[in-house]
């Protein structure tokens, strides 16, 4: 025998309405789509943060494309990093930054005497047993990833062009840096 709508009573009808709307909304959520790719999830960001060279471009692209995710990416980097170096204090920002000190590491920029348009990036780790494999520097819309060789005596040295994205980022007081 068919169930009559009026027979449901107020509670039954209210539940029917709630079930309908929930089913309707569930279907919408599950079929939610669009032409654009959905922003990466936190798991995806975490995988990229923890990943190696193959994920650098995707992390950098996400940083540019989804401004609202910057804070999440930074927070995940904080969580994952062996060392993190904050923005440089305003009082010290008149010139390009040559030294940054953070939690777990310090970074110096030293111009090469041999080739002035090249610069040494010298990373000194507080704990030589924690060996980062990459450096991530973010400033504005730029996210720079630099692969790091294993440290020697707690120090990692990178020689690169002074005009490189890496040196420009590290010399910028607004840049935040993580070693992972």
């Amino acid at each position, binding site marked *: 025998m068919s169930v009559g709508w009026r027979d449901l009573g107020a509670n039954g009808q209210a539940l029917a309405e709630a079930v309908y709307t929930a089913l309707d909304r569930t279907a919408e959520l599950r079929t939610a789509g669009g032409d654009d790719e959905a922003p990466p999830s936190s798991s995806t960001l975490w995988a990229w943060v923890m990943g190696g060279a193959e994920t650098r471009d995707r992390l950098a692209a996400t940083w540019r494309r989804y401004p609202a995710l910057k804070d999440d990416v930074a927070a995940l980097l904080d969580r994952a990093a062996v060392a993190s170096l904050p923005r440089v204090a305003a009082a010290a920002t008149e010139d390009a930054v040559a*030294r940054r000190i953070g939690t777990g590491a310090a970074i*110096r920029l*030293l111009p*090469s*005497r*041999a*080739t002035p348009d*090249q610069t*040494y990036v*010298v990373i000194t780790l507080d704990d030589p047993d924690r060996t980062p494999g990459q450096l991530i520097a973010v400033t504005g819309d730029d996210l720079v990833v630099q692969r790091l060789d294993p440290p*020697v005596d707690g*120090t990692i*040295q990178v*020689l*690169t*062009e002074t005009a490189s994205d890496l040196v420009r980022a590290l010399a910028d007081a607004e840049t935040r840096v993580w070693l992972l």
Partner: protein
Amino acid sequence: MTTGRVRVVVATTEGPAEIRRITAEDPSLRSVICLAGTSQALPISNAYDAFVRAPTGMIERAVGHPAFRVDVDRPIGDGESWQLGLYLAHRLKAAGRLAEDGAPADGVLWATGRVDHDGRIGSVGRIDVKLRRSGESWRPEAAPVLAIVPVADREQIEEGAAPAGFELLPVDQVDMVIQHLGLGIPRPVRAGPPWRFVGGLAAAGVVAIVLVLSPADVGIEPPPAVEAPLPASTRVASPPTAAFEPMALRLALEEKHAQTSDAGCAGAGTLAAVEPGAETVAGVCALRWSVANTGAVSAHVWLYAVVEGAFREYASRTRSSGYAAGRLEPGAVASVTVAPPSWLRRAATVRAILVVAAGERPQIDQVFTDIDLASADDLDRKVAGLIDLGVHVVDRRHRLIPSLR
């Protein structure tokens, strides 16, 4: 090839790699080998750094500076056969005779060989391949090319393997080549001013400074004259006249320990020679840095030592440092002693800077006038400036663990 500029190439199985330039870099950096002016550091850079930096490295001991950048025109792969070429290039560079950046050369040195801590040249193998490869792909600008190979590998070289214009020189000690090149032979220089010393530039009593002009000093034997007699070689030219040789000025270090654990550092203490930079036991009361002139002619030295470390921010007015400067005659020893504050209970680093020149140099005096006010970065810059002056600079650090009482 005892005079004039010399081009150095490192023999590899892919062809000769020319050393285009050697540049002294900031002492805090690690040495690198780069490809032809680019920022591409070759994978052997770490091994090269170990070859440079004392106490294990040869180069710092030989030329007194711990960090260099070398530019080569071709990659140098794994292995250690590059050591001899790099060592000789550094010695030529220190003597102002390395032909760099394509400058005209009076001779060409082609080298392959390992170099051990005592200057012995070890076997590397595949020399015939390196020779053949050089003959195929390389046209040296000057002839003859002096090809330095390990004695141990001489048997590998078949008759006629060396390209035309190559003159083979099998050697088993770097000093044989040094002598062949006319390096390391002292020459007379004019006398410098008498010794002077400056003690505790900003100190408040914890610094002990000793300037000794005699080898006899409180029971410590002077460092031995370790310049080994040059081995005989059929190719060695007759010895030139004596000249100032910076390497004859040897820096040595002794640790002063409490005589008994109960006495602490207040007592007389005992002194023991140690290798700078080496791990040593706890209970150090003071460090004495000495420079001994083991050469045949007098030299000017500037010796500064300071205790570094975070405690300096706390105890900025009780800086522990010592400084001595002046002319050092052959056989004489000068030293400074520094002690950490008595209340320091954790490890500290003592940094010593030794500058050696043939004669008086007011510019160097100037560098040291305010050195006690210098931060660690300032010290780095001062050292860099001294190197730029072209003098022999030794910049060493030693970690001490003070008495725990």
